[in-house]
């Protein structure tokens, strides 16, 4: 089966600075890929290359074997929530309907009137994220977690085959965060999911593959952190330094391959 996403020697440069360099990996259909890495490491650049918002400086990105821009209708994108002003006068339902831009099922995009199927599709998408009761509520009246669910519904309404989420749990309280994690678990059942996060507890539990990004990329098609991945993200740390403790904590979240954790668990009696 051909890969859903393929990066072939991809590099991308912002104003003379390389954000990602020589990246090559493939994502299989149905995978749930957790993209991990430090802030400024190139995670969002990776998402924008997949969605076609950025074009590689060198190399090639393929989504369903085609240019990402030509596969746009098959990609659902959830940007970081801060991109939308809560003050914008728009209801949850109208915001979700914008996920049907350019979708022939929603009728022509010329004129102010929506297609007949739009309301039904919007309601289905909001139901999937358990926000159907809020369809007419202004987005400014929703909590951060509810707004994030509406953004996920906007990505889902076009029935995408790939869902790309960029830090969906950033700035959300712990209750909202666990709701989003549960939701992602359900959504991953019938589509490929790329979840970008620096929050391991959110990104990792459902992952079937892991990508670590810090200008370079280490991709593992198994849900397993490897020593090269951790060294790519956090460098080499001594056992008693704070980062060493952090790496040790991560061992509880994801299995680690070929790695000695700095603070090994005490052996069972």
């Amino acid at each position, binding site marked *: 089966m051909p890969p859903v996403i393929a990066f072939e020697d991809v590099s991308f440069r912002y104003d003379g600075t390389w954000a990602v360099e020589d990246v090559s990996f493939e994502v299989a259909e149905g995978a749930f890929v957790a993209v991990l890495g430090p802030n400024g490491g190139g995670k969002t650049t990776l998402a924008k290359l997949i969605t076609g918002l950025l074009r590689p400086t060198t190399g090639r990105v393929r989504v369903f074997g085609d240019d990402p821009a030509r596969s746009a209708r098959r990609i659902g994108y959830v*940007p970081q929530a801060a*991109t939308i002003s809560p*003050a914008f*006068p*728009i209801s949850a339902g109208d*915001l979700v309907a914008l*996920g049907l831009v350019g979708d022939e099922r929603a009728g022509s995009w010329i*004129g102010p009137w929506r297609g007949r199927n739009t309301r039904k599709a919007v309601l289905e998408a909001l139901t999937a994220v358990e926000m159907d009761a809020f369809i007419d509520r*202004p987005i400014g009246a929703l909590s951060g977690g509810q707004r994030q669910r509406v953004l996920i519904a906007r990505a889902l309404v076009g029935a995408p085959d790939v869902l790309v989420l960029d830090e969906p749990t950033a700035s959300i309280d712990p209750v909202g965060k666990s709701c989003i994690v549960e939701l992602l678990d359900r959504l991953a059942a019938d589509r490929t999911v790329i979840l970008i996060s620096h929050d391991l507890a959110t990104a990792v539990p459902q992952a079937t593959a892991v990508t670590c990004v810090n200008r370079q990329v280490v991709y593992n098609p198994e849900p397993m952190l490897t020593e090269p991945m951790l060294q790519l993200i956090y460098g080499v740390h001594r056992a008693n330094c704070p980062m060493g403790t952090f790496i040790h904590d991560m061992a509880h979240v994801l299995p680690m391959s070929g790695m000695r954790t700095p603070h090994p668990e005490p052996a069972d009696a």
Partner: protein
Amino acid sequence: MLEALAYPFMQKALLSVVLVSIACGVVGALVVVNRMTFLAGGVAHAGYGGVGLAFFAGWPVMITATLFAVGAAVLAAMITLRDRERLDVAVGLLWAGGMAFGVLLIDLTPGYNVDLMSYLFGSILAVGNDVLWTMAVSVGALVAIVIVFYRPLLAISVDREFARVRGLPVAAVHILLVATVALAVMTAVPAIGLILVIALLTIPAYLAEMTARSLAMLMMTAVLWALVFSLAGLALAYAFDLTSGAVIVASAVVTLALAEGVRFGVRRLRKGTMDRVPASAGP
């Protein structure tokens, strides 16, 4: 007051403020939600370059100024499409360059003494039939553009990045938006002038934003607010023999100040009520 309506100049003034209110209300909503007030100001002042060009070349003033402003706005939009960080520089160039170009061309026009103030502050009571027709055609075009492209305009106003991912031609819609703003600005110039148009583009829409639940509702409410200010300003200007454009804007500014005062008072009242609840409900 009502006897004034018998005068043809007053009837034309009324008709012109209705047209200006529609243009500023509908497009002002887009300006406010896209945070484009500074750009609208730059476009308004670039229009002055078009006024100078019209006098210098002997072309029809309103049509030349409108085409000049739309052209300058589209150019600025194209330059800043890739680098929105430089929008302030582009607008500054439009603002200062347009004014300087206009003044220079009028200086170079031999034997012509133009009343610059009428373009800067408008002359609502002197609007002629030809200008009224031009305004009517412009407003018709504006309303048609906004109705036809409502959803793409909404999509880029809410979230440009997402609209681009969905395959919307964001650059083309952005250029259309900026051209629409330029057209609205130049529609309002004969009535309220280049400078005061900025207030009528932003204040009604800002007031409408306090209550609107959709972009369409925001546009309609902004039109109503603009009509209220225009009609009240016109009546006050007639009654006290004042400059109509300035009175229209002054009435908008006073209303905005009152609305903000009421909003601040309501917030304080609510906060005070909330603060008192735990104290009285405590054990």
